């Protein structure tokens, strides 16, 4: 792959005071593409996302290589990291009910990203913010700009979140379960907006999710994680040809409309998988 | 009878032991426990610890500085300050004990009845509680003492009268959570009267948190009692109450610092001990904190 945005080689993360690594020997590269990371809760997928942004104060992060464009993420100072976060790499969090500041106006929170990274005036920031709110298909940006988070719906909240994180035009966006907290009816809508923006702007996307179906539809490649390790990496198209029994188990556990009504397969979890992916 | 299983009995004891070990692990609450044990031991063995008769005047030793047979010096009548402090520990403990047995039952009765019966009674009782709560405790106790006449007993009554509302609030809140429980409903279906349910089923459940809250309040009680003594509205001379000792020592404080310094330090130590202990108890009983350590 020429000019990868992100190169990760043998990433290990251990929380302070924990007996074992939460994430072990995770390696992947990312170009201007959409990569999915799938796993059960506790598999370490969110931890990987936060480690890339260096937002794990209570954990030890080690890796052979952790390169983001021209930067070595492992050796950046906190001051340098402040210029990366939000500007070149950002993250969409799960639930807008909690991830938006409840007592600041929505527009103010979005504009903060811009004001933090660019020398713009408040009025310019407002114009840019309104444009961005329109870009995430908020119909009446002027009105929403002055609302508080509790006054907007979850779907709209997540669109605000996307606007906030894409406003400074980053090169990489990590979406950590971006639609899990939303109503099923608006999930697709929000994902389409995110997908459209990422494609148009040529942004690298890491989509962290437990939802295999969602990831295979919206990503180019998929990493399957189990107990802190990557057990298999696949092209989304080839999902049905998965080799690893865990991936196959995950696929078999998906209900299908019009499929057989027999009880779904129970997911098989074997301790030896924790070891084998090491090679 | 409310049939409590026999295995229930050791549970509170076990909990008490767990709490105690937790408290001893933190240096600050261990300090609190230490000071309080010293206070209790001092009060218990006052006649043996005191070097002098706390009331014996010795006009040859008036305002004598610390040392020279008087560990903490002598006061304006030549009485030994150390011995007076030792005997004063008894007064402090008496205040704590009496206030607890006034405040605990009043708070418990008002809180549980009000919480269990609900409705009008609840509204009226909580209004009354609110009225008492709308004063700072020292000022209301001042007013009560003024009405009852200044003396140690009246000071204790006055403090008791002002310290129950928070306890009642707490007991009410606890009762509200138990009121809907199945075992209360079961007792009611068996035909138990409200009085019986409150006394036999609800009060025992509220007791632990009430006891803890009482401990938390003790620092305030001690400071209020000392304040009343200082204003001449609590213990009267020649009783060796610490606050009153400061009040009489005040006249001589510029030249004879020891008259006010040692009683004040004693008050500070005891109220600090209760505060540290209360702080530790709060942590010990906070389940989130428990798991972390």
């Amino acid at each position, binding site marked *: 792959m020429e000019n990868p945005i992100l190169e990760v080689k043998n990433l290990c993360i251990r929380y302070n005071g924990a007996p074992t690594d939460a994430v072990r020997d995770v390696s992947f590269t990312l170009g201007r593409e959409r990569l999915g990371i799938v796993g059960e809760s506790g598999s370490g997928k969110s931890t990987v996302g936060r480690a890339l*942004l260096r*937002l794990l104060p209570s954990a030890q992060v080690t890796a052979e290589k952790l390169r983001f464009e021209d930067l070595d993420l492992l050796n950046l100072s906190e001051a340098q990291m*402040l*210029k*990366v*976060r*939000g500007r070149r790499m*950002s993250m969409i*969090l799960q*639930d807008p009910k*909690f*991830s*938006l*500041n*409840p*007592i600041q106006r929505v527009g103010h929170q979005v504009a*903060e*990203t811009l004001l*933090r990274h660019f020398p713009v005036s408040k009025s310019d920031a407002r114009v840019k913010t309104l444009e961005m709110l329109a870009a995430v298909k908020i119909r009446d940006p002027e009105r929403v700009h002055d609302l*508080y988070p509790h006054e907007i719906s979850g779907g709209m909240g997540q669109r605000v*979140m996307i606007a*906030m994180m894409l406003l400074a035009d980053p090169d990489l966006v990590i979406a950590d379960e971006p639609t899990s907290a939303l109503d099923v009816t608006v999930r697709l809508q929000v994902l389409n907006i995110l997908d459209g923006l990422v494609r148009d702007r040529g942004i690298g996307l890491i989509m962290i999710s437990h939802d295999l179906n969602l990831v295979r539809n919206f990503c180019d490649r998929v990493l399957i994680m189990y107990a802190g390790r990557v057990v298999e990496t696949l092209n989304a198209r080839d999902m049905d040809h998965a080799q690893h029994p865990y991936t196959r188990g995950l696929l078999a556990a998906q209900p299908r409309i019009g499929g057989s009504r027999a009880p779904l397969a129970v997911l098989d979890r074997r301790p030896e998988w924790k070891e084998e992916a090491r090679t | 009878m409310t049939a409590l299983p026999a295995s229930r009995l050791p549970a509170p004891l076990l909990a008490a032991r767990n709490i105690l070990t937790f408290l001893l692990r933190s240096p*600050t609450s261990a300090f609190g426990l230490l000071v309080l044990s010293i206070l209790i031991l001092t009060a218990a063995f006052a006649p043996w610890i005191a070097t002098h008769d706390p009331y014996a005047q010795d006009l040859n030793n008036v305002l004598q500085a610390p040392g020279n047979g008087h560990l903490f010096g002598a006061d304006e009548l030549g009485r030994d300050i150390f011995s007076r402090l030792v005997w004063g520990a008894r007064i402090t403990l008496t205040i704590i004990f009496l206030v607890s047995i006034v405040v605990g039952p009043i708070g418990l009765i008002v809180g549980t009845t009000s919480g269990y019966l609900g409705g009008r009674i609840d509204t009226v009782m909580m*209004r009354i509680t*609110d*009225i008492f709560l*709308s004063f*700072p*405790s*020292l*000022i*209301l106790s*001042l*007013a009560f*003492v*003024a*009405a*009852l*006449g200044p003396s140690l007993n009246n000071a204790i009554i006055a403090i008791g009268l002002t310290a129950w509302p928070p306890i009642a609030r707490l007991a009410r809140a606890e009762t509200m959570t138990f009121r809907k429980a199945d075992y209360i409903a079961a007792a009611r279906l068996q035909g138990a009267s409200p009085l019986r349910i409150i006394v036999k089923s609800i009060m025992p459940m509220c007791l632990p948190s009430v006891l803890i809250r009482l401990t938390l309040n003790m*620092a305030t009680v001690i*400071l209020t009692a*000392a*304040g009343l003594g*200082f*204003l*001449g*509205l609590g213990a009267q001379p020649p009783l060796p109450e610490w*606050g009153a000792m400061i009040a009489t020592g005040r006249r001589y*404080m510029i030249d004879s*610092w020891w008259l*006010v*310094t040692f*009683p*004040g330090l004693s*008050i*500070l130590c005891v*109220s*600090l001990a209760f*505060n540290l202990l209360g*702080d530790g108890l709060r942590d010990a009983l906070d389940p989130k904190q428990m798991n972390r350590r």
Partner: protein
Amino acid sequence: MSISRMRLRGALGQAGTIAVTLLGLLLLTFVIGRMMPADPVRAIVGEEASPEIYQQVFQQLGLDRPLWEQFLRYLGDVLTGDFGTSIRTGKPVIEDILHVMPATIELATFAILIGAGLGIPLGVTAAVNKDRWPDHLVRVFSLFGHSMPIFWTGMIALIVFYAHLGWVGGSGRMSQFYIGMVPDVTGFLLIDSLIAGEMDVFASAVNHLILPAALLGYSSSAYITRMTRSFMLDQLGQEYMVTARVKGLSRRQTIWRHAFGNIRVQLVTIIALAYGGLLEGAVLIETVFAWPGFGQYLTNNLIIGDMNAVMTCVLIVGVIFIALNLLSDLLYRLFDPRTK
């Protein structure tokens, strides 16, 4: 429409609650007043008055009427603004109290500034460093302030800073030398001395104010510190703090702009309540520092058993407390967008 009606009903309900509380307050002060051992008639007519005169005054005061009637009379008097006459000064009680109040307000205001100025940064520091040494240090420091008998600390401070070091003024609001030099305009000495252009008096007043205000402030900072810490801990654990970090804000910026920004309303309400609590400390500290304020007025009258004055003082404290509670409630509703 129905919402505004509901609001109206809520407001009426609240007004009713306040009215009931105030009535209870009056009943309480009435009971306290009637229980006081001092004989109000003797206090007026003196020890040597004849039984006839005694009887006459007894009836004048309405003490021969049944208690409920006396209470109604008291209620009527209070509602018409008549709080009775002070036996000690011979002036209407309310006049006396209005005269001493500014001294206490001056003291309490400075104290709360010190208390908040100390308590809020300490609380934030403790929360940010939870369970590390700054947290423990702050905890002990603030518990210490909460545990000290303030009348005693006041004396020790006087011995050290006034008698030995001579850094501050001693008792009273200003040096004896300046008393009467500044005309009483507002009652607030700092303001009056500035109006009169007497900088020496102003300096003396500050010099006398600083020690009692600092002690009161320190004792009230314990409460403010504890509340600030727990409010901050609530906020620091929230997910939006991560969002702010992801946007590229430094830890410091997220703490002050987001977490602290969000607790400002709560802090204001806490400070309002702490201000009321200062009245308690004021009673003791005013006695130690011979500060001619409300607290000293109350204790003086308590000791001689001046019934009208005591009843009114207690009543006023109660009303101030209720008012502060209401105010903090109101501030919360006005400034927290979520309550709208």
